[in-house]
């Protein structure tokens, strides 16, 4: 059995330039960039509780809507101005016109089992 794939939405419901927030604990957001790439990160800004899915997606970075902290979607690293801690990154799978996320940590767990 492979890693757990959590269904996010249909591909049609996540057009380029948009984001989807998954109400997990902690919440996760999935981004479809203008260039057609998919990324998933923890949704909550590490500076103050705000949803990064509500933020501004530019290239492969997202800017927090509250205080403009910027996170790199590829690495989860902040720009360091306000937010100092990174967010976790997760793996996105697009299959059969649907978008799934595989939470970081769970793939190793599954690989080990």
């Amino acid at each position, binding site marked *: 059995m492979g890693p757990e794939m959590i269904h996010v939405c249909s591909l049609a419901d996540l057009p380029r330039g948009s984001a989807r*927030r998954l109400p997990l604990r902690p*919440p996760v957001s999935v981004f479809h960039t203008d260039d057609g790439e998919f990324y998933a990160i923890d*949704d*909550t800004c590490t500076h*103050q*509780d*705000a*949803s990064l899915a*509500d*933020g*501004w997606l530019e290239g492969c970075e997202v*800017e927090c*809507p*509250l*205080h*403009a902290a910027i996170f790199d979607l590829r690495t989860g690293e902040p720009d360091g101005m306000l937010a100092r801690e990174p967010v976790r990154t997760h793996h996105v799978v697009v299959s059969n016109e649907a978008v799934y996320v595989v939470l970081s940590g769970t793939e190793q767990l599954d690989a080990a089992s």
Partner: protein
Amino acid sequence: MTALESGPDVATGSSLIPTLPGSAYTDPAVFTAEQERIFEPAWACVALASDLDKPGAFQKVQVGRESVVLVRGRDGAIRAFLNVCRHRGAQLCTEESGALRRNLQCPYHAWTYDFTGKLVAAPNLTSMPDVDRVEHGLHKVHVTEWLGYVWVCLAEQPPSFDDEVRAEVTGRLGTPAAIDAYDVGRLALGRRITYDVAANWKLIIENFMECYHCATIHPELTAVLPEFADGYAAQYYVGHGAEFAADAQGFTVDGRAGEQRLPGIADDQDRRYYAITIKPGVFVNLVPDHVIVHRMVPLAADRTKVVCDWLFAPDAVASGRDLGASVELFHRVNEQDFEACERTQPAMSSRAYRAGGVLVPSEHHIGLFHEWVQQRLA
């Protein structure tokens, strides 16, 4: 040409009719009632639309007792909101104007609104899923654009713009097409001067409506418009524009030629000056090569801000030609008028003016303005 009565008052047979009492110009309670019943329910001309030049451009404007934020959205539309955060009421914008990068954000707790007024983010908002982001968006204010200006109305049900605003222009010029000929919305800002006038807003309107004072305080204006020396203002007759003096080549401080006549205006509009009051706070002057728009913002019973724009053909502004002689004429008129209003304001609280003063026949149409004010306050 339709003239109002120019002799003694029909009803009383008297040459003189009364003004408002002095207290109408000084009493803070009267001023508050005017803000509430005249300025807040009316369409207010608040900004030149081209000053909001790109998405995110904003201006803070005062309408009656309310601070209002104008912002141009990503869709190009200008929207207006009460300048009050829905959370704890802090003013969202404290600067007069500027450019917003992403959104409208309260500097207090960072409640964040998009340019349509919707609440898009706030600390801990995602853990309050019952908070409707539209319902807790900014309070919207009605907006329309005309003559290149942004007009807003604070009323929940605004009056018809045609009946309240366009009708004033048509009533003065005689036809709706008359102002269209100037294509005011296409013109560009050549100069803006803001006057802080220590006088009640009604003194400024009354001054603008009559020309009994013109021969005394406006030497440059009466040199270009000789009929103004007779005391009958352009606002006295329907459809009448005051004719330029034979030796005036343009509407300039010394009669020198101004800019090229605007392309759309009719031959009978050339070499003439038209003046329009759009109650309660706008004056428009039309001359062949430019348009002057005054916007009044009453700040207190004895203080009024007047913003005056001189609008010219875009190529005239772009050319960098000196528009100074054109601007200087009405700037002097403004300074002369506002000095007269400021001279009058202190006397409004004198016992000598408790019952008010009088209007001579060439000022009797100001009585219609007073009736209008009193109807709105009733």
